[in-house]
């Protein structure tokens, strides 16, 4: 949770950003609707291909890891998932954590993606939200109501990358903050022990 100082700082940033937005006819985003959409169309194609490949277990997880690195802003996702503890971590710890996190996430969601076999993902739209773009896709299973997957895309890392996924309202960053927080609590806040645990978790 941000403290007072940080919220005030955030307020100032928002005020400045708001002023800028008011002064300019268009939102000051380098990234546009079609670029955000294009990124997710490519990512979704790769996901569809991975699901259709018939691969299972570690082979499928490493496919997901590649997709995740290619289209996701892994460092910012990892840092955000670690939450406040990221402020105390050294650069070496952050690097090790990010690497372990990327494998953990690929195994965890790779397992769950088994339930997506037979599904088809389609990108249906994109719109600016706050300072980033939200690309909406639907997962279609034959005979079932389609369900919604939102991808949050930003170019703040210097490249167009997604940094969050929201599946039927379930926010991946929020879920991982809760989970990594619980893992860290179990290790009484020891980041090195957490990194060791993450190498096999997921």
């Amino acid at each position, binding site marked *: 949770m941000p403290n007072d100082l940080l919220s005030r700082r955030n307020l100032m940033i928002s005020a400045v950003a708001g002023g800028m937005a008011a002064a300019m006819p268009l939102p000051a985003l380098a990234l546009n609707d079609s670029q955000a959409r294009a990124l997710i169309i490519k990512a979704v194609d790769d996901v569809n291909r991975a699901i259709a490949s018939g691969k299972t277990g570690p082979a499928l997880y490493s496919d997901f890891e590649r997709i995740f690195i290619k289209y996701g802003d892994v460092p*910012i996702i990892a840092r955000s998932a670690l939450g406040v503890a*990221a402020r105390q971590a050294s650069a070496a710890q952050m690097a090790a954590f990010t690497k372990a996190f990327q494998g953990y996430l690929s195994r965890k969601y790779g397992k*769950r993606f088994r339930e997506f076999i037979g599904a088809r993902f389609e990108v249906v739209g994109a719109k600016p939200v706050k300072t980033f773009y939200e690309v909406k896709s639907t997962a279609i299973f034959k*005979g*079932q*109501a389609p369900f919604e997957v939102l991808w949050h895309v930003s170019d703040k890392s210097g490249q167009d990358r997604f940094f969050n996924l929201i599946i039927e309202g*379930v926010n991946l960053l*929020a*879920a991982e903050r*809760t989970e990594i927080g619980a893992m860290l609590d179990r290790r009484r806040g020891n980041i090195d022990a957490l990194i060791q645990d993450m190498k096999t978790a997921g």
Partner: protein
Amino acid sequence: MSALGNSIGRGAASAFVLAAVVLAGCAAKLPAPGEIHDPYEAENRETHDMNKRLDQAMFKEGSGGPPGPIGQAVSNLRNNLGLPRMVVNSTLQLRPEPAAKNTLRFAINTTLGIGGIFDPAGHWFGLTEETTDFGETLHVWGVGEGNYVELPVIGPSTERDAVGRFVDLLIDPALLLANGEEKAAILALRIAARSVDRKRYAATVNSILYDSADSYAQSRLLYLQNRRFELGGDAATEAELFDPYEDPYAE
């Protein structure tokens, strides 16, 4: 006993229709996605541990996967028998469109789908279920979700949704029309279909229950986020979205 239940059910149903007319149009404000009210956490965690033990006893690891034809038929039958209840709820919510869709779906699957064993409405006509329940009806009438509760056997819920589940038993046309034996059969069907669901989503459920460092906190978060999305759609979550690039942690 059953006649008494029926008349209570009918009385309750007409009272609700009246309440719907009075209250409709003042849907409850949804809490922010990060907001969790869990004053019963200690008791809830005990129930959660009990539910996990029950789950472990009933579902061996590795027994998951998509259902076969029998499992699918059980699931379809349960879904079909649930449609009249959803039509009642959509009507109480003054939402004619999902009520009409589910009515048509029920008519098609009960006839062409041989009593609901098959789902031609979904597969041939793209007429998929418009899922709703009395918890949503209460939401539409302006009742907030209340505190988080984990119910024995059933799992994650809120105070409002727990009341909703109970009322759904009273206003369910399938149960109101059934005699004692049929009621037992419907209940058995629901339990069997739940077991089919559990196996279908085994990978995700196992991952949440058994691979998480705090399965209670994970299931609570996932339930609340998904439920609020069901009730309010994207708009409910938009104001609270993370922007990690602006976030103090991301420095």
